[in-house]
């Protein structure tokens, strides 16, 4: 039994052929030193047929993966308008460059981004505000076949997957985009490598409103780091004193998937991290001074998650009412957990929490049969695969088929979809902040990098308008280096528009 077997794998929404329809990429467990599949296993790219069905185009695209797959991060690192894929794996990862003709090329060696080790989640973001997407890659523990630990009894059926505290933490990777198709590993000089973690999930967001993207990482049995961007290419891990590193007893939890959003609209990005059973998931409210308070116990999230283990998760406005909600995929990591703890289960239901002006409500039971299904949930990606403005959910499961959940709730309200294209700022506009007013509804939404677990999301933003049939204005604050603001009045509703940085009208 090898720990990577129970933790994967991830999934993504990606419009790889730029046809305006979200395609799907699923990561799978390929061969490695501890695993030789009896039949060939590969990752899968499914092209969206625009009718609710998909076609497997993996062979043509050439994105099968070549090791034990974990996660995927989608980003247009070379700014050619085509989304590229970074696939994390054990024992090394891959960068696939999108050729624009339905095929990809493995450019890992040229780019210098193999990241030898056990890569998990990754995120594209522009840490040095040079307008190019850099890459942060989470690294799980110091692990290989030789270092595998036997946990549990020696008798038949008594062995189980180890809790990661038997493995040593490792530094994560940060790759700087050189702008010529190559990257430089700046993990050490940036300060990222100074923090040793067992990293699963990562989200990039400006947590202190200084115009620089910070990183929050979910770390398992090691403190969650909060890498605050100091500028000049330097980060400092302030997770402990910020109050997000440990639980209130000063003990590291099993940090898994993470995300960030300003759920209470106070202008400061808040955080979320899922943990495992008996640890309670954490909703961290931003105190506006570099510190956070875990407020999950003041919400139903606390008690609901007391006995659960969470992985992929994402803040999003599932019903387009203008309030940010939260979805979480769950499942205990240990296949035999019920033998040792009858109250716990390997297969667990997903959770959906609705937020309405600071009040959270568990609406999972009303969310349809998919939320009653018990699954070994792992990756979770958001994307509007049918372009109806209701953001759908893709969930990958461990050793099972993925779930594609079509959102039927978003249609209750009106919406505006935005595709942002940076020109001076990074092309994916990671870090952009969009504000809008629709009648009495005034909201803002920041475009974070990554979030969830091993997964990547539809890059478009959907603004919930509630019952309002019009938008008075939208304002886009582009990330640095431009940092410029553009305002548009009376844009259309219930459709997607594209806004290119610097262009005076939307398309």
């Amino acid at each position, binding site marked *: 039994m090898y720990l990577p077997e129970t933790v994967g794998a991830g999934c993504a929404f990606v419009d790889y052929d730029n046809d305006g329809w979200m395609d799907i990429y699923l990561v799978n467990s390929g061969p490695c030193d501890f695993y030789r599949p009896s039949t060939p296993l590969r990752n899968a790219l499914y092209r969206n047929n625009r009718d609710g069905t998909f076609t497997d185009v993996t062979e043509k695209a050439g994105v099968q993966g070549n090791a034990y797959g974990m996660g995927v991060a989608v980003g247009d690192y070379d700014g050619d308008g085509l989304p590229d894929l970074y696939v994390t794996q054990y024992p090394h990862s891959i960068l696939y460059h999108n050729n624009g003709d339905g095929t990809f090329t493995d450019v890992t060696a040229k780019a210098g981004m193999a990241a030898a080790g056990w890569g998990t989640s990754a995120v594209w973001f522009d840490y040095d505000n040079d307008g190019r997407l850099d890459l942060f890659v989470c690294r799980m523990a110091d692990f290989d076949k030789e270092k595998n630990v036997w946990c549990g009894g020696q008798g038949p059926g008594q062995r189980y997957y180890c809790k990661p505290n038997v493995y040593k933490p490792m530094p994560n990777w940060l790759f700087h985009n050189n702008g010529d198709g190559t990257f430089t590993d700046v993990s050490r000089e940036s300060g990222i490598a100074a923090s040793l973690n067992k990293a699963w999930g990562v989200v990039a967001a400006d947590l202190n409103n200084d115009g620089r993207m910070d990183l929050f990482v979910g770390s398992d049995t090691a403190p969650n780091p909060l890498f605050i961007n100091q500028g000049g290419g330097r980060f400092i891990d302030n997770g402990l004193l910020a*109050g997000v590193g440990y639980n209130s007893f000063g003990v590291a939890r099993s940090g898994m998937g993470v995300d960030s959003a300003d759920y209470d609209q106070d202008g400061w990005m808040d955080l979320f991290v899922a943990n495992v059973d*008996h640890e309670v998931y954490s909703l961290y409210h931003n105190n506006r001074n570099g510190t956070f308070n875990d407020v999950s116990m003041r919400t139903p999230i606390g008690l609901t998650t007391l006995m659960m283990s969470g992985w992929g998760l994402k803040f999003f406005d599932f019903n387009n009412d203008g309030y940010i909600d939260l979805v979480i995929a769950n499942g205990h990591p240990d296949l035999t957990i019920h033998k040792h703890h009858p109250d716990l289960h390997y297969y667990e239901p997903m959770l959906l929490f609705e937020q309405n002006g600071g009040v959270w409500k568990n609406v999972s039971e009303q969310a349809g049969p998919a939320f009653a299904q018990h699954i070994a949930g792992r990756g979770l990606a958001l994307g509007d695969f049918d372009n109806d403005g209701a953001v759908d959910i893709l969930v990958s499961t461990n050793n099972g088929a993925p779930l594609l959940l079509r959102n039927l709730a978003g249609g209750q309200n009106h919406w505006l979809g935005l595709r942002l294209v940076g020109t001076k700022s990074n092309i994916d506009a990671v870090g952009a902040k969009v504000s809008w007013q629709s009648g009495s509804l005034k909201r803002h939404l920041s475009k974070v990098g990554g979030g969830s677990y091993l997964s990547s999301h539809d890059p478009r933003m959907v603004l919930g308008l509630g019952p309002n049939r019009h938008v008075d204005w939208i304002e886009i604050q582009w990330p640095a280096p431009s940092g410029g603001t553009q305002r548009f009045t009376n844009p259309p509703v219930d459709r997607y528009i594209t806004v290119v940085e610097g262009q005076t009208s939307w398309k």
Partner: protein
Amino acid sequence: MIGGRLAGKLSLIGCAALLSTLGVRAQAHSAAASADAEVHRGVQLVETGRCTEALALIERGLPGVRDKALRYQGQMAAMRCAMATGDEQVAADNLFLMERESPGNPDILYWETHTFSEMAQRAAQELVGKYPDSYQAQRLQAESLESQGKEEKAAAIYHTILEKHPHLAGIHYRLGQIALDEAGDSGSTDAAKEEFEKELAVDPTNASAEFILGELARRKADWPVAVRHFSRAAHLDAGFSEAYLALGMSLAAEGKYAEAKPPLEHYVKLEPDDPAGHYQLAIADARTGDQAGAQKQMALQAQAAARNHSSDTTQGHAVQP
């Protein structure tokens, strides 16, 4: 001359002193030999089951025995004999003596367990035999059922006790514990809360009940109520270290970091090896502007955490062979 006479006298005095010392030593040697012999003989008698004679010899001889091994043999024999003859006082005295002279000796710890367990059994038999209808006997029976996991039956007996003795301290507390067990990790704790509140109505000095009520409030993020209960628990029992930690944590959770510091500072003095206290104090320091204090506490937290490095045994996770 004077000097010569004086020297002679001193010499005589010296001789006398020497003789006297030798005499004392000889007597002491003889006494010690006699004590050793008595204890030896006593140990032999124990082996043949003649406990009454043996005990008298060992008790008389033991104070004079200097040889460690013989003392141990004598004390062990006396303890076993005393238990056989029902002289629990002598048995306990010898056990405590042995523990003081050989702390941590596994043999002594083993016998201690057996001896006190036997004493407990005898006392229980006497209680139930002589006072079968007493609330003490009923309570003992209920506690025994609880330890066997038969909580429903135990609760029934506790309720019976309360019918006759509604103001008896400790019974509602037990019922509260049973209700907590029934609630499990995620069930309702309302019934438990009610019992602990009743316990405090009967016995306002029960610090544990105050603590649990505080903990129930803390779980619901009801910080003002938690603070009230934890404060009382700490006030009732100054050595109740967890109450100080919980009080500090609850105050911090309320955002009252300055108020949280005194109980947390008290806690880290009481429990310097617990990373939780240092962590909470670090957070309180940091959020009251004391960055140096925060860094210091965080370093202490890391040291304590390293010392307490937990094994992989929690919550059904794996245990390494």
